[in-house]
């Protein structure tokens, strides 16, 4: 089991309430995933890349790490600690900074990198994780969150969802993949770097790889249907888009609701029941192996 919620604002009517509404949705899914939780929140694009970093030891010297990163890459970095995370604002090539951290800071996991996305995670009660990182106080365009009941790998903060391996791209997963070990090797050979043993990180890496190769979200997910084997309901975020995909067997639940102002997706309707104007929403269960996507760019 696991719980997924996603909320995508089609208009700016509730943009200021994005975090608050996402926290309400996450709260309803805490029974589906009491191990750990996390969320990705997309705001207005920043002028520079943001990296959200997790200290695996809780004792990382962020100031020292920022200095080392600047010395090694020449990139200017501002750092802001948040609990056991830190947000690094990087003037220049964010991908280069991400790669350097992964290669040179073994006590740190890069949770996200991009101009719009910020990812925060924690072990324990989903409500406490949301509160710790002030999910309810945040605004933005879309958010994806996850409550985890671990099956495939250890309960750690780094192993919590969402997983983000490409700029401004993230994925949450309910299910289990059966060919993730093989694909982790395939993707490594294609330049992806992985930071956990988690099967869902491989799915995120797969999407990042396909999109780097030129696929848009729909094309990347069409390829995923052919390549990824296992059970899954995915919710995917990009800088300006949101997508949902269930595997062809569709064992893992999902429900989508849409109004003129928002699109919401969750494992169960009770998370959606908390949203404004839900009485007038179109509500449906996404069909197996069918890609549902929304974008502000379209």
């Amino acid at each position, binding site marked *: 089991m696991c719980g997924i919620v996603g909320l995508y604002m089609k208009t700016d009517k509730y943009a200021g309430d994005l975090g608050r509404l996402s926290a309400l949705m996450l709260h309803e899914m805490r029974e589906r995933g009491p191990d750990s939780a996390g969320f990705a929140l997309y705001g207005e694009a920043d002028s520079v890349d943001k990296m959200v970093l997790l200290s695996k030891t809780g004792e990382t010297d962020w100031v020292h790490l920022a200095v080392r990163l600047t010395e090694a890459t020449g990139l200017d970095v501002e750092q802001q600690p948040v609990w056991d995370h830190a947000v690094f604002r990087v003037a220049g090539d964010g991908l280069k900074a991400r790669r350097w951290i992964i290669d040179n800071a073994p006590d740190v996991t890069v949770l996200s990198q991009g101009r719009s996305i910020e990812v925060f995670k924690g072990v324990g009660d989903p409500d406490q994780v949301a509160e710790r990182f002030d999910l309810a106080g945040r605004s933005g365009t879309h958010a994806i969150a996850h409550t985890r009941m671990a099956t495939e790998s250890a309960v750690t903060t780094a192993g919590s969802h969402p997983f983000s391996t490409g700029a401004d791209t993230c994925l949450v997963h309910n299910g289990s993949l059966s060919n993730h070990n093989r694909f982790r090797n395939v993707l490594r050979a294609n330049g992806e770097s992985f930071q956990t043993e988690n099967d869902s990180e491989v799915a995120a890496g797969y999407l990042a790889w396909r999109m780097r190769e030129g696929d848009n979200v729909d094309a990347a997910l069409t390829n995923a249907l052919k390549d990824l084997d296992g059970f899954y309901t995915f919710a995917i975020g990009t800088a300006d888009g949101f997508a949902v995909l269930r595997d062809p067997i*569709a064992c893992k639940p999902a429900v989508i609701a849409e109004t003129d102002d928002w699109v919401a997706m969750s494992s169960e309707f009770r998370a959606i029941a908390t949203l404004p104007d839900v009485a007038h929403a179109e509500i449906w269960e996404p069909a197996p192996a069918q890609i549902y996507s929304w974008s502000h760019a379209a």
Partner: protein
Amino acid sequence: MSDVLEKNSALDLSSMTVREVNRMLKDADNGDFDIYNPNGLHALACGLMKPISATIHGHVGYYCAGMNQHAVVTVTGNAGTGCAENMMSGLVRVKGDASQSAGATAHGGLLVIEGDASARCGISLKGADIVVGGSVGHMSAFMAQAGSLVVAGDAGEALGDSIYEAKLYVRGSVASLGTDCIEKTMTDKHKTALSGLLERAGMDIDVSEFKRYGSARELYNFKIDNAGSY
């Protein structure tokens, strides 16, 4: 308990727990109940054993009206996974759509889904009747043993896979038939039975628009020629 309950009692889940509502429904011998603010909660109106009527106003979560006996349960919105699972008797009506495994293992009674049902509708059906006004998803009536599944729309892939003696009636297209499920002749006996089911479901549809499917009975016995496959 029942003597303190008045007919047409309104139960509000915004101020009562699921257990409190289910307890009140179970303790009543008769009466009509309206249940408000279900908001996708699980296990509503489960295990009812008396001829009461309960109308749930809104969308319900998993296992609504599971194990029902004698009661009439109506959901005005959509139902989550496992609606009316293992029903024994009575009537469960969903006015919206139902998620997967609706009517799973149901032994008796009638489940009416006015909208669509998703995957595995009537899986391992054991004698209940299910009438779906819309379409059903893949693997519906998988290993269905007895009872009927009526689909006024289309059926998804692998309809009736490994079916025993349940009767399937589909009005629209069938994406594919499952192993050992075949189209069968619609006799007058079947037309009469189907007509009765549609009437009980409140659906005015001409039975001549339906096709019947059922078991080829090729999987009933072990075939020695296949021994090498195991």
